[in-house]
């Protein structure tokens, strides 16, 4: 009797007191959180941030050059715009990673808050006195503000050039410098943060796995679905707000063609398409840069955890709905969202609906299998 009691007590206290990460027995790739994290880092975080960083450097060098010489001319403006579009498209592949340094310095808020607060931009330019780190200036910096400075300050190239060179050049430079500084901070921090990241496999609210999944869902629901389509399409307001689309100034400016070899088709759908590609690649386990697939991804994990097979398996269901939404995005609507919303918003909303359907599968079905809480709720259950 006593021996029995003693054994129970010993086994029990052992279980409840052990805190270190003992190597778990590998029961298959499905439960391999370490691979998940390393795949995410090696196939998405590291290459995508590098690509974005290079594109941004390229952009910055053009601005620096113009600032140190006579400013821009038609040709260098056109080059700058191309570089800007290139940078914006690379951005679409990193916006979903709001973790580590990026989270700490509100990186996403400094890079892509739109619509632009043009009044704020103007007053900053007028006074020459501003602190871009102040949250009040989030909507007056970053990529959307570049959009404004390159396409919104004049109704044709001559006007834009004149205003840019005479009035806005300093501000343009400041904004780009700030973006560079923040991007460097994030990219450099990853060099050391990655060790913590790659080993953070616990099922707690602050573990890397949980944060990444939550970030991914949040990005899909807010950054992608709501910001790019929902809000402009009027889902969250009584009527559509086409002025709130991403790249608004570029779209309106290039509505009837931008001329000078700069294709208006370079806008619009492509931004959302890049974002959609980023989403699908992340979910399905594809390295966007190389195009090759890897084994352990959210889709593969769901493949194991969901006992349904074939098309009924949750991983496949999410994939096919993502494909449907992606096709609608590419084929059903005008690449110029402003034009689409103004002419036929219902069609625009149908694409939104297709994107929305995936949200339920991610937030309800996927989270159910992963047993990850959506938000950190500190309370008892029962």
């Amino acid at each position, binding site marked *: *009797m006593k021996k029995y*009691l003693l054994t*129970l007590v010993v086994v*029990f206290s*052992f*279980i*409840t007191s*052990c*805190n*270190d*990460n*003992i190597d*778990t*027995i*590998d*029961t298959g790739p499905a*439960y391999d*959180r370490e691979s998940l994290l390393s795949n995410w880092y090696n196939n998405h975080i590291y290459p995508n941030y590098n690509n974005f960083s290079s594109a941004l450097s390229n952009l910055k060098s053009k601005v620096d050059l113009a600032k140190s010489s006579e400013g821009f001319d038609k040709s260098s403006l056109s080059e700058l715009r191309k570089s800007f579009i290139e940078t914006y498209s690379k951005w679409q592949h990193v916006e979903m990673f709001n973790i580590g340094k990026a989270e700490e310095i509100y990186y996403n808020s400094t890079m892509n808050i739109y619509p632009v607060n043009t009044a704020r931009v103007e007053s900053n330019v007028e006074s020459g006195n501003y602190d871009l780190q102040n949250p009040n200036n989030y909507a007056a910096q970053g990529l959307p503000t570049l959009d404004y400075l390159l396409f919104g300050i004049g109704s044709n190239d001559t006007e834009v050039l004149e205003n840019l060179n005479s009035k806005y050049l300093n501000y343009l430079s400041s904004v780009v410098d700030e973006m560079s500084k923040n991007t460097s901070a994030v990219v450099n921090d990853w060099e050391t943060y990655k060790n913590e990241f790659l080993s953070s*496999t*616990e*099922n*707690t609210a602050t573990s890397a796995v949980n944060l990444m999944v939550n970030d991914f869902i949040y990005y899909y629901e807010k950054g992608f679905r709501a910001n790019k389509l*929902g809000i402009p399409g*009027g*889902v*969250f*307001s*009584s*009527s559509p707000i086409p002025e709130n689309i991403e790249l608004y100034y570029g779209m309106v400016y290039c509505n009837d063609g931008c001329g000078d070899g700069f294709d208006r088709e370079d806008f619009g759908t492509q931004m959302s398409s890049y974002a959609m590609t980023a989403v699908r690649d992340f979910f399905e386990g594809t390295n966007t840069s190389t195009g090759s697939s890897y084994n352990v991804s959210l889709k593969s994990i769901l493949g194991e*955890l969901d006992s349904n097979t074939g098309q009924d398996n*949750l991983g496949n*269901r999410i994939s096919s709905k993502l494909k449907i939404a992606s096709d609608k995005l590419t084929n059903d609507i005008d690449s110029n969202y402003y034009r689409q919303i103004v002419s036929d918003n219902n069609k625009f909303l149908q694409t939104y609906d297709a994107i929305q359907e995936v*949200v*339920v*599968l991610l*937030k*309800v*079905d996927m*989270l*159910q*299998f*992963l*047993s*990850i809480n*959506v*938000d*950190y*709720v*500190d*309370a*008892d*259950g*029962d």
Partner: protein
Amino acid sequence: MCYSIARFYFKGWIEELYIKPDFHFSYYGFEWIKPIGEFTYLIFIVCFISSLFVMIGLKYKSSIILFFLSFTYIELMDKTTYLNHYYFISILSFLLIFIPANATFSVDNIINQKKFTSIPRWSVDALKLLITIVYLYAGIAKVNSDWLIEAMPLKIWLQSKYDLPLIGGSLLQMEWVHYAMSWGGMLYDLSIPFLLMINKTRIMAFILVIFFHVFTLVLFPIGMFPHIMIFSSMIFFSSNFHEKILYQIRRVITKVGKKVKSKKIHMKTSNLYIFPRQNLTLIAVTSFFIIQILLPFRYQLYPGELFWHEQGYRFSWRVMLIEKIGYTNFKIKSPNDGTSFMVDSSQHLTPFQLKQMSFQPDFILEFAHYLGEKYSTENNKVEVYADSFVALNGRPSKRFIDPDINLINEQESFKDKTWILPLGDEIKGI
């Protein structure tokens, strides 16, 4: 309970759960019970002090009544925080009002200079009966096809505990373990009250109680529940056993007391505690138990799957029984011009409230009415529609609420909520 209240305070939950939120989900019929701003702390202080008094047996009758009232008030303030073990404390403290817990070894004995050596047997049996009811019904609730045949929701919950040392990556991932724990949990609940009652099996049973509750504490975030169940099951032990414990405590107190100058305490010892109005008391206690026994079966009055529509789910010891996730948004429609928009619910509810609201129809209805009031004006009474999807125990998500029903026209009542869409699946069981 003293510890529980203190813990609640130190975790900052009083502020976070009762003072900060703009809106609280209320219980049907108790909508008038609300937090009172910063004074809500007062209710907790009253609760804390009264639990302290009950513990030492000071002014027992008034203290236990005060504790019951303050604790129940706290629980009635917001349905979001409903927990079965809080309900247990409420009814237990209600029952304790009728039980002479201060008959011996209490400060009241010192004050009244009177103590008793025995109390009527039914007062101890009543407490045992209450605990038996809790376990039995918890066990009965587990007799359903999801729990026993699909090993749901334990399969999901155990698999997610992959980071627990030793067992996380191995044992907890295995299917037979999920079934063993589902069946084991059900059998434990149904048998433990009887194992505790029988003399021969009592010690084994108590060890099992400790093991079971500590194990669940490690696995799940269930707060004070295990502690409450472990200590309350001690009521099954004989009075001899408790006398031994009290003797040990007395020794400690007198050792400490020797250092302090103390008066000799004179006490008259009576044999049997006699209730002043025993018949009335018995009627009250009996009615209490009749309600407790019948209440969990009220779900039979509603059509459809209980786990899905949750009408009659609460107050029935359905503990850690289902895994349910919801995603519910609201569309506000303006009848004047036909425009509509989706509401950002996080503007009005805390993450905890959002989570609870997303899969419980009574919450959805109450919140819909709140939104209706918020967004309506004199000339424009808006319509509110729910876009809601819920997944239950590992099933694929399904639309939960009829999206075409204007919830403003629906009222909370005991009647069936016809606007809840059917599960389309059958869960067999009691």
